């Protein structure tokens, strides 16, 4: 029985989350901004058509936004995280295996034979239950499922579902830009697309011998061209990961669905409290402190983290079992980071999910996992926004703390227990997690 992999990907996820509770915005241009209302991190199809690019700074986009009446939101990660959970749990009911790849993407296994019907059913059910539109790409490998998903997004005429299993894959790979392949970042794309330099001795002799076409690097611009490269060359220039990618393009599955989270390399910062802690504000301050330490540790080792887990607990030894509570929540960050304010921001949102009033907390902490080298962080497209300024800020803070003592310079969240004073002018209500922020309907 041949395996069928699927990649289910929400369309403009953050925008779709806002539209789920404001259906009037369907078909209209919408954007969502990053932390501090700094940059565009999500755009609807209509906004894209107006020339608003991913990562564009808000001030640059403002003229377009004002001219075309584009609706803009500050990011509401609490809402997005909860809607994401609903989307994944809904999909989970239909498939034998599901892997959360990111906040808005999941790899799944389909039962071979009726994957197209299953995909359509999933698409309709997710749309109905959560309001989120998704695209589904399918193929004999994860990489091909991702290719299919990308094609589904680029070509709405396919109805949002594209199945490459059992088809002539080359036909699609011929027009597929190599830079759009999963795992090929901007640097590899540049390398692949360049003509190799001719630095051999005695070029005329080489030419005469006829060996020239084999030795000079050709331009590789499409996925099909990459697929046809010799294994040894791929292994040498793109590492074993690149080789797996090429094999997957050829239909040989090398990457399984990871249902269980792999044990991750990570670091943990936690502490038991010296005094009883009951309020959310106090917990936020403590967690922010842990994030600060965690950020420092990451930067000191030139690392970045892509995954964050926050946990809180009461003492396990309380007499009354009703007073015992512990919980954790975790999140795949949109990009690897070691920037303390970002970590604090996400940690506080996670904390809001697990905090329950009426308990006496004894310990809190954060895990920073999915650790990557700092260089990989720089390559991530989203991380490049504002990156230089942030890196400079953090290195200045670290330098001052080394000179004047630990925590001489610290985020506001740690000293005063408030949320890092962020600009969030247009944040939508937390419709699904706060009783006093639920959707209002008119009896009229």
């Amino acid at each position: 029985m041949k395996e069928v992999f699927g990649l289910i990907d929400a369309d403009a996820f953050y925008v779709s989350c806002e539209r789920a509770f404001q259906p009037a915005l369907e078909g209209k241009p919408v954007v969502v901004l990053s932390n501090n209302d700094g940059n565009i991190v999500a755009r609807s199809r209509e906004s894209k058509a107006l020339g608003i690019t991913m990562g564009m700074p808000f001030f640059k986009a403002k003229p377009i936004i004002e001219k075309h009446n584009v609706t803009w939101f500050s990011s509401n990660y609490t809402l997005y995280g909860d809607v994401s959970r609903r989307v994944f749990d809904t999909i989970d009911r239909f498939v034998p295996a599901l892997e959360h790849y990111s906040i808005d993407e999941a790899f799944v296994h389909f039962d071979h034979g009726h994957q197209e019907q299953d995909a359509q059913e999933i698409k309709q059910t997710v749309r109905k239950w959560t309001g989120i539109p998704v695209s589904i790409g399918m193929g004999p490998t994860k990489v091909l499922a991702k290719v299919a998903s990308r094609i589904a997004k680029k070509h709405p005429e396919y109805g949002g579902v594209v199945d490459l299993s059992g088809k002539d894959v080359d036909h699609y790979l011929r027009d597929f830009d190599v830079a759009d392949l999963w795992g090929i970042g901007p640097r590899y794309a540049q390398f692949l697309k360049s003509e190799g330099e001719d630095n051999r001795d005695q070029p005329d002799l080489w030419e005469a011998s006829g060996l020239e076409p084999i030795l000079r690097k050709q331009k590789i611009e499409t996925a099909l061209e990459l697929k046809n490269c010799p294994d040894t060359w791929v292994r040498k220039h793109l590492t074993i990961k690149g080789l797996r990618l090429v094999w997957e393009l050829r239909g040989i599955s090398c990457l399984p669905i990871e249902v269980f989270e792999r044990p991750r390399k990570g670091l943990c910062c936690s502490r038991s409290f010296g005094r009883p802690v009951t309020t959310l504000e106090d917990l936020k301050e403590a967690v922010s402190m842990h994030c600060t330490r965690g950020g420092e540790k990451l930067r000191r080792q030139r690392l970045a983290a892509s995954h964050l887990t926050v946990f809180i607990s009461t003492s396990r030894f309380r007499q009354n079992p009703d007073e015992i509570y512990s919980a954790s929540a975790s999140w795949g960050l949109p990009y690897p980071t070691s920037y303390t304010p970002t970590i604090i921001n996400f940690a506080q949102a996670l904390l809001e999910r697990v905090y329950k009033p009426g308990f006496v907390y004894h310990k809190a902490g954060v895990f920073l996992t999915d650790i990557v080298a700092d260089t990989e962080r720089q390559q991530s497209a989203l991380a490049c926004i504002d990156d230089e300024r942030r890196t400079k800020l953090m290195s200045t803070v670290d330098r001052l703390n080394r000179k004047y003592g630990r925590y001489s310079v610290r985020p506001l969240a740690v000293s005063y227990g408030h949320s890092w004073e962020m600009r969030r002018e247009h944040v939508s209500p937390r419709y699904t997690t706060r009783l006093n922020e639920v959707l209002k309907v008119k009896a009229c």
Partner: protein
Amino acid sequence: MTEKQIELRIASVSKLEIGEGMTVPLYLCRVSAGFPSPAGDYVESNIDLNDWLIRNKLATYIVRVEGDSMIGEIHPEDRLIVDRSLEARHKDVVIACIDGEMVVKRLVVEEGKHFLVAENPQYPPIELNGDRELIIWGVATHSIHRLRT
């Protein structure tokens, strides 16, 4: 005994795994040497509001009502439990988006025609005939009306 504040939060219901049994306490009370409680054989777990009010937690949302067109059935400030996975049928109270506005109405199907009506006779019915921008967002299954403020 001090009152514990417990927020009713739909989103914090823990996932019910298919096949997972409900845990039932083995002993309701400590069994001291000698005399067990006569109620020991009849132990049940507490009535759970979530089980009672929510059929499909993934598609369930809470909304808050403003306005008085549904008085007789639903009052201003009432909270409704809305299930987006249900197919709206005749006599259902539904949440709809009409001309960009989120409203609560009752769906009435008469001789093949669909109408959205209010309980309060002061508000006219709206026929769904494709003229207006309309989406049925979800079906309200319960309304929660607070008696004591």
